[in-house]
């Protein structure tokens, strides 16, 4: 009736190989011998976010900063572990009493990795490039306040601001303000050239970036010969890479749930680190719905932020009520302004005329905290009658869609810049918060030099945001820093996103 041919079994082997390979790749690559780095002065460091370009002056990705800042690129100033501002490429400076004129004296004998010398012309080029109308700098507002940059001599720079800006020196330490050279700036996205203690060597996209020691570094030379940054999006793969010796350190480990595994293992040291971290449900204030304060407040009442914070499963995690994390000296606890109250949320939504079943799009970047939080946000909003559609994006797509085109309703993202409350004074910023009262407060804060008055103004700004909820502020989590016992000199406290490697060495 039907032939034997119809009974022929399908070729499963090929599919099995494909699936096998897929699972293999998902779990981790080839193992390598542990501790090989101690002998040849190399170290392998795990990083969560694979950068898509290597130029921090044109792209806000944290991945770029984790690899390049303080290793390849340097700024005029730098911050130490406690966040205090120190001289770097500028060995000294003076500020006029009105807070508008800055005179920097550059370090002599500083060379870029391609041999170009650092002069005032280089600094002028970098600052002018960052404040040019076509500049893509993620923190352009720092540079837009510059009136003029001039060069009294080769090694002195004079900067005039449009208005006094008391945070200027610490903002010059940000990765967005690193000094780049005219002849190499355009190529930095692919082949970064800076003045730092490490030289860019090799980049395997989405896999690893290799840096080697800069033998002619102008300052204290690096202790390691080679640094390999490897990228992991999968927390289990990251854990396995540490356990099988493929990695020596993971400064911001993505799965704190698994930290206990390393605490019990004498080959590793686990430390709780601090870095600015402000996770939030960012709302597109340009959307008609979120332009209404009532709706934003309803969302704040609808989310059980204590629950979301608990779900992060990290000791030391805190609920945030405003855009400031607890390591900041101006931090004030505002987490109880909108306690969890779904009934009140429903009432506010009704009052604002929002139909039950209104559909909202939540786009998520590819990182563990965002995926967990996103799923919870969808669940909590469903309870107050809002329907959430989740889209998970890769970093380049997320950056383009959310940061670039402002094409989103809501997203979950952590801001990791220090002292960046000023982004709420930028009406062109991705979440589009435009509030003249806040802008006036921020202008007063930056015009003020007196620390006590600045503190008062900072608290007022935090309170304004906490009540107005331009974004629903969620939580702060400490960093989980895991490294082999012999790895010394890693920064545990980080004032800004970076992985400074020049102080790291293999000890006993």
């Amino acid at each position, binding site marked *: *009736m039907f032939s034997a041919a119809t009974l022929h079994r*399908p070729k499963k082997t090929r599919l099995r190989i*494909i699936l096998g390979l897929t699972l293999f790749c998902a779990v981790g690559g080839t193992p390598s011998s542990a501790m090989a780095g101690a002998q040849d002065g190399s170290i392998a460091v795990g990083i969560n976010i694979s950068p898509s370009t290597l130029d921090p002056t044109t792209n806000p990705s944290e991945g770029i900063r984790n690899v390049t800042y303080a290793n390849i690129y340097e700024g005029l100033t730098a911050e130490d572990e406690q966040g205090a501002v120190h001289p770097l490429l500028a060995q000294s400076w003076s500020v006029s009493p009105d807070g508008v004129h800055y005179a920097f004296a550059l370090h002599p004998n500083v060379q870029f990795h391609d041999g170009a010398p650092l002069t005032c012309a280089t600094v002028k080029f970098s600052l002018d490039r960052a404040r040019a109308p076509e500049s893509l700098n993620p923190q352009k507002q720092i540079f837009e306040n510059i009136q003029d940059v001039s060069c009294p001599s080769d090694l002195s720079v004079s900067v005039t601001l449009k208005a006094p800006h008391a945070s200027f020196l610490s903002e010059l330490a940000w990765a967005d303000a690193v000094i780049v050279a005219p002849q190499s700036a355009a190529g930095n996205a692919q082949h970064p050239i800076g003045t730092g203690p490490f030289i860019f060597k090799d980049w395997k996209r989405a896999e690893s970036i290799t840096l080697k020691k800069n033998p002619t570094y102008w300052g204290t030379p690096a202790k390691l010969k080679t640094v390999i940054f490897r990228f992991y999006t999968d*927390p289990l793969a990251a854990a396995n890479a540490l356990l099988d010796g493929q990695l020596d350190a993971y400064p911001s480990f993505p799965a704190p749930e698994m930290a206990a*595994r390393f605490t019990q293992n004498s080959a590793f040291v686990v430390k709780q680190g601090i870095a600015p971290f402000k996770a939030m449900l960012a709302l597109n204030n340009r959307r008609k719905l979120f332009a209404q304060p009532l709706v934003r407040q309803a969302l704040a009442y609808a989310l059980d932020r204590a629950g979301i914070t608990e779900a992060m499963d990290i000791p030391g995690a805190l609920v945030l009520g405003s855009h400031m994390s607890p390591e900041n000296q101006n931090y004030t606890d505002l987490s109880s302004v909108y306690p969890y109250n779904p009934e009140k949320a429903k009432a506010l939504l009704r009052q604002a005329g929002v139909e039950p079943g209104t559909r909202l799009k939540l786009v998520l970047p590819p990182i563990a905290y965002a995926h*967990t939080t*996103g799923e919870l946000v969808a*669940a909590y909003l469903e309870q107050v009658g809002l329907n959430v559609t989740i889209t998970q994006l890769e970093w380049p797509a997320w950056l383009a869609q959310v940061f670039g085109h402002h094409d989103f309703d809501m997203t979950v993202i952590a801001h990791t810049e220090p002292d960046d409350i000023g982004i709420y004074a930028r009406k062109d910023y991705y979440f589009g918060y435009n509030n003249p009262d806040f802008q006036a407060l921020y202008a007063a804060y930056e015009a003020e030099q007196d620390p006590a008055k600045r503190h008062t103004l900072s608290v007022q700004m935090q309170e304004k945001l906490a009540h107005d909820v331009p974004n629903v502020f969620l939580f702060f989590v400490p960093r989980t820093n895991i490294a082999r016992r012999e790895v010394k000199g890693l920064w545990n406290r980080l004032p800004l996103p970076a992985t400074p490697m020049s102080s790291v060495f293999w000890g006993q």
Partner: protein
Amino acid sequence: MNILKRITSDTRFPSLGLALGSACVLGVLVPGAVLWLAHLHATFGIDIHARLKPPTFAHWLGTDPLGRDTLAFSLVGAVNSYGISYLSMVLALGLGTGLGVLAAAAGQKTKIIANGVVELGIAFPPIIIAALLVTLCGAGVVQEICALAIFFIPGFVRLGQQAAANIYAQDYIAAARLSALTPWRILLRHVLPNMVPGLLVQFSVNVALAMLAETGLSYLGLGAPPPLPELGRILASYQVHIYDHPHLVAVPGVVVVLLVLGTNMVGDGLRDRFARQEHIS
């Protein structure tokens, strides 16, 4: 002849595999479907403050990292994953067999086109097809079904073509032609019905393979977006607890094994039954 009758009421060849396989699949899917309907518009019982609880009478296998019932959530995920695999195979069966039979019935040109489709399909693994579709159209159930179907179409084209060609070579087809039956009538009355047993076996074996592929896709985040639970993504989200709560990973894992194994056993059982019936009649 009634194919259902051939499978169900034929007591000459009792098959343990068929019974066990059906039990595995139905044992997962029936309670899963009940839960699926109950949770159609709910958040699957997320309750952070009851996260990672050990088994209780209310939660037989405890709760997961977001406080959901681990077993219930995995069973609902199983219904979604199985449904997606099943629908994708229905699509692949329809398109693939249709093209194969046409190729066997029609001339050389159709054969060349059919072979081209087969070669093209084989060149792309499902992961690549899925990644492409997700990049072009975003993640979603439809994209996932299409990605899986595209990968399995070539197999059905080949099978359909071979089976139809064999039937067309039989004497009774020649007899039908001599009786001046139209080609369509021959195809519908004589060719297709005789292909059904073979296709059914291939279908159930492929559903098991598609289930594995679906789990792989959703594990890699190429499946449907959350909150819709799928076994692969459930597995991926539980795996960070592999050291402190290892049973969490085991639950969706065992469910995958039961479904794949069960479906395979059903396929094998059907094949044996048809083969023996064939042998005797």
